[in-house]
């Protein structure tokens, strides 16, 4: 299987804080790679650094064999990396439809087909099509955020804690959707909820204190009680 995204020893500072101190991981085409770790380990910053929102001072990010470390965020996005941030970043004054349209950029056949597809995944969005993004519930916002990232021909989706703050029944829906998206897109997922992560992840990367401590097959981690206890506080 080919490597789609390669993160090689990135260091990132936010202000004077040295947040990432050598993160290494890979996302293989067609797989769901999960970044695991405690709060403050550097998972979100890793995604932001890939997007160029908090640029790396050292190390490199390669996407499709091309170095994107120093590229501006909008270029990275245009190369086919979709990003669903933790706060979802819905445009509250735009309707659901407008939110989607902004994300679509163009309305060619392929894009419209993708829109059709995501609306099947998230039928709720159709119901609230003309409603302002700001008036959606947390779960609906999460679905809109994912739909928005997906609709623009993303070859890779970075999804940051999609289960955060959602009711269990909604988490189920979100998981179903990720499982569907997985069929056509490579996904990098940051997730605290280990049950969810273990169910949809193919591979894992464990991050602690801004460093990669372990990576491998999700199945191995599921059975490695020691590792889970040490870094995730479970088991």
């Amino acid at each position, binding site marked *: 299987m080919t490597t789609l995204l390669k993160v090689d020893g990135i260091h990132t500072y936010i202000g004077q804080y040295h947040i990432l101190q050598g993160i290494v991981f890979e996302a293989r085409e067609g797989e769901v790679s999960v970044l695991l770790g405690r709060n403050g380990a550097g998972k979100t910053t890793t995604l932001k650094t890939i997007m160029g929102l908090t640029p790396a001072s050292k190390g490199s990010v390669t996407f499709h064999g091309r170095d994107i470390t120093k590229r*501006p965020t*909008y270029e990275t*996005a245009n190369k086919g990396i979709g990003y669903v941030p933790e706060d979802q970043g819905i*445009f509250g*004054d735009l309707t659901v439809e407008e939110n989607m349209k*902004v994300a679509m950029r163009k309305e060619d056949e392929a894009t419209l087909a993708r829109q059709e597809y995501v609306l099947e995944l998230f039928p709720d969005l159709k119901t609230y099509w003309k409603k302002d993004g700001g008036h959606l*519930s*947390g779960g*609906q916002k999460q679905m809109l955020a994912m739909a928005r990232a997906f609709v*623009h021909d993303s070859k890779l989706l970075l999804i940051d804690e999609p289960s955060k703050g959602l009711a269990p029944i909604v988490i189920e829906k979100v998981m179903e959707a990720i499982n569907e998206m997985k069929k056509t897109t490579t996904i990098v997922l940051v997730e605290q909820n280990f049950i969810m992560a273990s169910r949809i992840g193919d591979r894992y990367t464990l991050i602690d204190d801004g460093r990669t401590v372990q990576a491998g097959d999700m199945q191995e981690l599921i059975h490695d009680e020691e590792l889970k206890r040490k870094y995730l506080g479970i088991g």
Partner: protein
Amino acid sequence: MLGIIAIALAIFPFVSDSRTWTILLTQIFIFSILAMSYDILLGYTGIVSFGHAMFFGMGAYTTAVMLKRIDPTMGTFILSIGVGMLLAALISFFIGLLTLRLKSHFFAMLTLAVSGLFLVLAEKWRTVTQGNDGFTFKAPEFFKDRIMFYIVVLAILVLVYIFLRRFVNSPFGRVLVAVRENEQRTRSLGFNPLHYKVIASVVAGVIASLAGSLYAVSLRFVNTSVLTMDITLDALLMTIIGGVGTLIGPIVGAAIIELTQHYLSGLAKDYPIFERWIIFFGIVYILAVIFFPKGIVGTIREKLWKRSTKKDAPKSVPKKEDL
């Protein structure tokens, strides 16, 4: 609805022979154009500029100087509007490119500085501008009749409104709103916010210059006051009081402010205390901001929205707990 108001306003000067009202309404139309242009920055793109007067002044001076130096004809008038808009486009483009990368408050301060620079230029370049004293000039023959000028300005206001409405409702306009709401997020959707902000500031600058050209002709006089902070503040307050992020808001705001100014200063004849009308004006501002935090149009719209959703609430608006 808006069409009816526009037609009523177009008929107005032929029914009423009040010169004061014709002039006052012309003034309101001109400031509506300026305030709408400011709203493209403030309301749609989320850019706070303290230097908007520089584009207004640019238009005013270009038209005044050309009408004085070349000849006071309609041709020169139209040409001068074009030249003013072109100048405004070029200057707003370069200033935007250089400054819009900055965080909002730095940008606001820089626009203040740059517009200060233009004010000093107008004061010192006496051979052309005659400094602070300014100069009078003849308006084209066609505008000798105030009613003609009134009709032309009204027509321009309607055209500008239609153009800006198309602009903000276009896909481009949607991205502007997205930039205002969450610049980082817009960037990660693949847009370069700088690109959008610069174009918004060019559109706003060009329209402000148009308003300035009309303003100069309405007074047949120009001096450095067209470049002062007061003009920017007027535009800012008209936008805020009327309602940011709506195009009707700035028009309503312009009407309210111009009418209040006119009325309060008129009261001074009978009540000397109103010679200090600016104080009362301050009170009106404070009340407006307290009772209409989203501006008059914004507040009304919100009320209407609430009412319409209340009606069908049980069917279509899910409670948060549902999901």
